[in-house]
């Protein structure tokens, strides 16, 4: 009993310390993830496993953007995949023109940010399922362009090695450099987590939250729908595009056919399964939707693994409709019940 209390106090102390310093928490979280990048060198995990974690990191950034849109402003986008593709392929096109990595990344971010603003303007008129399908239109238009237009090079665009910050040459083929790439994208993820945290805690975040509860009430309180809807869509597209840039940076070979409706649906699934409005929940959702099937299920079941991931999605949504991250509260409840039971037992023993 005493030990239990001590452990509990210890963890309560740590979690209090951490919740007071969210940025430090994100940083520590990033360090834990970054350590995965060096495990393959020791032979503890395979290189493929690291690759899967790289995708988890990339999807986390994309899903965080959608979480801003879906969780905080209640709007849905089915065009996410198109914007991830814009980031990755756009980076490829610009870099093949000879533009350095950083400038190319900023250029694609500006272009898709403008596209996002256009959708945001559109969203003022169109609502609900109509808006969702309108974003699907955008996604399909982008997909058509990627697969049909010459400059995207048919099947795939090769970026080749990236000269990071102008002097560090990083190639996917070299193992040490690949670990370094992993480190960089983990760093990007931490930065994006901090950015999202700051947005959510700022005036913008509160305005978005008010808008998601009731548009009319928010408007009556003086929140400009135009401004914040634009903000929400621009942010979501920027996050998605940045995820695409990370994809291009890490993979250095970008397929043109991968940016379909399925991918957009998966990103929505990650947000919903993980937990709306929660940053760590988003990461958890990505881990459930992308990580678990690719890390374990596929090894054991092959193609049939899709059945299990499908059932997993359905069950999580039915039992945790607000996101799997809320399992934490259930665990806490169970733990308290266990503690109460144990202390009761002790009382009876003492008698």
């Amino acid at each position, binding site marked *: 009993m005493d030990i239990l209390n001590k452990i509990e106090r210890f963890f309560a102390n740590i979690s209090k310390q951490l919740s007071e310093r969210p940025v430090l928490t994100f940083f520590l979280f990033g360090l834990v993830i970054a350590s995965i990048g060096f495990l393959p060198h020791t032979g503890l995990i395979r290189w493929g496993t690291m690759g899967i974690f790289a995708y988890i990191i990339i999807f986390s950034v994309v899903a965080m953007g959608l979480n801003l849109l*879906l969780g905080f402003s209640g709007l*849905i986008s089915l065009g996410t995949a198109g914007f991830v593709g814009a980031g990755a392929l756009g980076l490829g096109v610009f870099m093949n023109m000879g533009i350095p990595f950083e400038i190319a990344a900023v250029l694609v971010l500006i272009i898709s940010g403008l596209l996002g603003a256009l959708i945001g303007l*559109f969203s003022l*008129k*169109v*609502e609900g*399922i*109509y808006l*969702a*399908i*309108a974003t*699907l*239109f*955008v996604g*399909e*238009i982008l997909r*058509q*362009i990627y697969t*049909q*237009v010459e400059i995207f090079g048919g099947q795939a665009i090769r970026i080749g090695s990236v000269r990071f910050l102008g002097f560090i040459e990083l190639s996917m083929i070299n193992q040490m450099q690949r670990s370094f790439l992993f480190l960089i994208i983990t760093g990007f993820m931490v930065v994006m987590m901090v950015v999202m945290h700051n947005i959510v805690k700022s005036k913008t975040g509160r305005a978005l939250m008010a808008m998601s509860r*009731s548009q*009319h*009430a928010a408007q009556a309180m003086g929140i400009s729908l135009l401004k914040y809807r634009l903000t929400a869509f621009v942010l979501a597209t920027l996050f998605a595009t940045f995820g695409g840039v990370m994809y291009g940076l890490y993979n250095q070979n970008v397929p043109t056919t991968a940016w*379909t*409706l399925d991918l957009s*649906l*998966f990103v*929505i*699934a990650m947000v*919903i*399964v993980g937990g709306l409005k929660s940053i760590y929940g988003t990461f958890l959702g990505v881990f459930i939707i992308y990580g678990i099937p690719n890390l374990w299920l596929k090894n054991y079941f092959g*193609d*049939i*693994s*899709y*059945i*299990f*991931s*499908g*059932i*997993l*999605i*359905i069950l999580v*949504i*039915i039992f945790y*409709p607000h996101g799997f991250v809320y399992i934490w509260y259930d665990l806490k409840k169970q733990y308290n019940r266990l503690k109460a039971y144990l202390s009761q037992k002790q009382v009876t023993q003492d008698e």
Partner: protein
Amino acid sequence: MTDLLRLLFNSLETGSVYALAALGIVLIFRTSRTTNFAQGMIGTFNAYIAAYLMLQYGFRIWLVALVALFTAFLTGIIIDTLIIRPAAKVSPISKQIITLGIIMVIIGILPWLFGVDTMTLPRFIPVRYSFLIYGADLRYNTIFVIVLSTILMAAMFWFIQYTKWGLATRVTASDETTSKLMGVPTKTVTMVSWATAAMLGTLAALFVAPRVSVYSNMLLTVQISAFFAGTLGGFSTFFGPVVGAFIISFARNFTQFYISDIWGNVIVYTSILVFLYFKPYGIFGKKPTKKV
């Protein structure tokens, strides 16, 4: 003239397929309040059953089509009772993701049950039965597809508009809670809607199957076009999406032929987006009234 007629027949045929799929989607959207992304996959699954029966036992296309429609009915009922009904309290967006879960389950089941070989389904009426109008080749199968879809859709509209069960469907679509209070068996209505939607999707799959082979993504284009049709026509009526389906099919075929093969789709989609900006609830849609 030849090209024009050929495009016309082609558009009518694909339009009918899109219309069938769109009708299934709008039916589920109205009764279950969710966008069913699995509509195409459910159709594909039953098309696999048809193709598999044909390959293994050599049954006629007409027979396997009937079997597939029956299994589609069952699939719809199973999905509704096992998955959609327990999730009744889940928010509409989460429900969409549940349909994504259904897609994944079916994708997993397909190679496990039917193997990985590609299969084919023939046309209902073989290609050799055809005749020429002004040089354009008109197949009896095309006529069959158009006529059957039209009859089916007309029958559905009649059913929804003039029968007691149709009335139950319409009231469930407009307000589920109130209709439940009024004694409408909304559960049965929803279940039958899923079954009907599954059958419509399967029929679309059977019509598409001869053009492409039977594979897991065979209905992808049809399904996306069906969504677009729903948006263009408006989800608040049952006939809007059907009209939208034909418009999209015509617009796409004609722009692809006369303007540009690559940019055809882009042009059509962009113009629909512009149209939606001015008429956000589709051609026939009404703005839903909302209380604050």
